[in-house]
Each structure stands twice: as structure tokens, then as C-alpha cells.
């Protein structure tokens, strides 16, 4: 996604803001903070979107902390029970948790990046099995997804999906539906 210049998902994921601490004073750039200051003072904390933050950090004008969607609380929740974490709430509407995480990962030092990569990979692997199960179950019920029948836990899992996970869900559901339709048609048309 990082090298995918044309990918809409990458662009949306980059729009997330991160908290940065500026190391130098920057004249005339106060509007970035949304306030009325004319300049950015040293050591002031401002939230700027990723696509801007990338260059600023690379050129060493600011430092940043790992934003909340990847902070310790989320990490621990994922370690405890990956399937119950609602990823879509953590990153605004649309939810591109994995894409955002990947971008941050690219900017961090090697150890931290390795940790993040492992956290995301483990979380994904745990969630994907539940995802596919639900998708195949829903192929039988119908495209609308009534939700009420399978219980609240399943429904809240589906609502908490990141948007890349949603794509996988719809792929699995479509293929299961096709298979079912093919199997069912066998008993009618031929005879």
C-alpha cells in the first residue's frame, strides 16, 4: 500500500493524524495547528496528517509518539483476545487500521517496527479465521446480514472490522454463495 500511488485506500489511510513534537521553531506555519499562532514554537505538540508527518520526521524537524490506535492499551487488548477488538473504531470512519499501522511501521526504528509488524500479523491471523467462518455462515442466510439470528457477539465483531478485513469478508461470502447456488440448482433443472 505504501508504494501504491494510485490506491484509494492508501490515500485514505494517510489522512490520519499523528501527534508530533516540533524540535525547531518554524515561522509562519502556525496555521497547521489550527490555532491562531503565527509561528510554531519549539517543543510544541501539533497533530498533523501522516502524509505531511512523513517528510517532517524524515527531515528531522519533529519527533512523534506512537499514536493511540497502536498504543499499549490496544496492544494488550489484542494479545488477550484479538477477535474482540473493534478495529474500525480506532481510526475514524472507514477504518484503515492495517494501512495506517503499516505506514507508521515504515517510519520507526527496526525494533519497534518489528514489534508492530508482529502485533498486526498476529491480530490478523487470529481474526481471519473468525472472519471466514462468519462469511460462510452468512452466505446461507443472505446478503443483507440480518444479524439478529447469530447473536450480538458476531454482529459486533462484524461492525468492528477494519476495511481491508471487510473486503476479505465479502470475497469469502460471495464465493460461498456461488457454491451453494451451484449445489442447489442440481436437483431441479436437469430432470
Amino acid at each position: 500500500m505504501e508504494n501504491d500511488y494510485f490506491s484509494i485506500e492508501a490515500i485514505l489511510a494517510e489522512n490520519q493524524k499523528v501527534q508530533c513534537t516540533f524540535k525547531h521553531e518554524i515561522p509562519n506555519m502556525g496555521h497547521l495547528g489550527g490555532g491562531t499562532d503565527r509561528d510554531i514554537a519549539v517543543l510544541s505538540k501539533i497533530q498533523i496528517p501522516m502524509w505531511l508527518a512523513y517528510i517532517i520526521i524524515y527531515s528531522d524537524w519533529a519527533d512523534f509518539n506512537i499514536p493511540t490506535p497502536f498504543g499499549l492499551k490496544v496492544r494488550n487488548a489484542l494479545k488477550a483476545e484479538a477477535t474482540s477488538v473493534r478495529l474500525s473504531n480506532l481510526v475514524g470512519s472507514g477504518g484503515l487500521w492495517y494501512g495506517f499501522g503499516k505506514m507508521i511501521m515504515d517510519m520507526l526504528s527496526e525494533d519497534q517496527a518489528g514489534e508492530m509488524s508482529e502485533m498486526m500479523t498476529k491480530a490478523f491471523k487470529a481474526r481471519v479465521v473468525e472472519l471466514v467462518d462468519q462469511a460462510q455462515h452468512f452466505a446461507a442466510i443472505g446478503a443483507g446480514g440480518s444479524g439478529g439470528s447469530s447473536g450480538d457477539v458476531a454482529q459486533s465483531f462484524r461492525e468492528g472490522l477494519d476495511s481491508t478485513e471487510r473486503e476479505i469478508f465479502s470475497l469469502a461470502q460471495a464465493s460461498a454463495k456461488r457454491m451453494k447456488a451451484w449445489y442447489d440448482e442440481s436437483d431441479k433443472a436437469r430432470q
Partner: protein
Amino acid sequence: MALPVPLRDSVTPHELEMIASQQLIEIVPLIAMERTAFISGAYGPLRPPSKAKIPLWMAVNLKLKKKCHIIPPQWLSVEHLQDRLAQEVANPDAFSDLPFRFTEISKVLLDVASDDLENPDQIRTLLKDLREARQAKSREGLRHLDHSELGLTGLTSMEINEIRPFFVQSMSLLTKLARNTEATT
């Protein structure tokens, strides 16, 4: 015209059925036919009551017009399938050895020629059990998904087609997530 997203990586079950229907199957014809040339090759002559080998699509056609009896392939019998099911259950890590297109062929034959098969209901049940057992195994394989490879030997054509779209998507997501650790080492 663009394909809908789920179809970009896989084919429909109907297409697989058509491909599978090109396999040859034995029949006992009830009519006589000279050696006829078709696009895929020349078949016949059909001289009842001796057996002949023709493609499945042709056999289905003749059967629907009640002009032949189909002889089921060797693996489509109760004992054979029970054997395979036992193998499947005994080996939780491996898939048993079934013909590559057994799902499609068995469905077509059960539809059209159930009177030519012995015990069609039991065969249906056995096939269903086999399918479920194998599906459970591929779910297990999903748990061990890696970004670089995953070995699931012995899957048949319909099963591969079923799981391909989301397996490939998941693996590509994992590749994106894992790339950093490899790039910096």
C-alpha cells in the same frame, strides 16, 4: 466490461463443471451411431449393447434423451467413498486422494444418472461428509496462514476455487504487514 470483484481471481462453479464434463466416461448405448467428428475429437461408433467411451457432456445429453446408460467411474461407489472418508478422518493433517474433479463429476452424475448408480442416497451422504471433513481441514490450514506459502496438497478443483479469493487477499495483506521486517534485515 469489468468483472465483479469476487470473480477476478476465480472462476464460477458452472465453468468448472463444463471443464470437468470433457472427461471421458463409459456408457452402454441404447442407440447406434456412426463414428462422428466433433470439435474436440471423433467419438463412436456406438454399437449397442457393447460399451463405449464418450465425453461426459455427450453422455449426459444422451442420458437425458434416454438413449444410454452411464457406467459410474470406479471411485463413485459406496465402498470406495467410505474408504476415502475413513482416510480423511484418520489423517487430520493431510487430504485423502480423490480425483481432481470429483465434486463436479459426482454432482452431474447424481443429477442425471442416479438410477445407474447403486445406492445414490448413501453416495450423496458420503460425498457431503467428505466435503465437510475437507472444509474443516482447510479452515485449520487458514489458521497457519503465512505470507509466503501455505501447503495444502490434495485439494480438488472446486475446493481450490472456493477458497482462492480470500486466501490470496489475506496472504497479500500479510505480505504488506510483514515486509518491513524483511526489508530491514
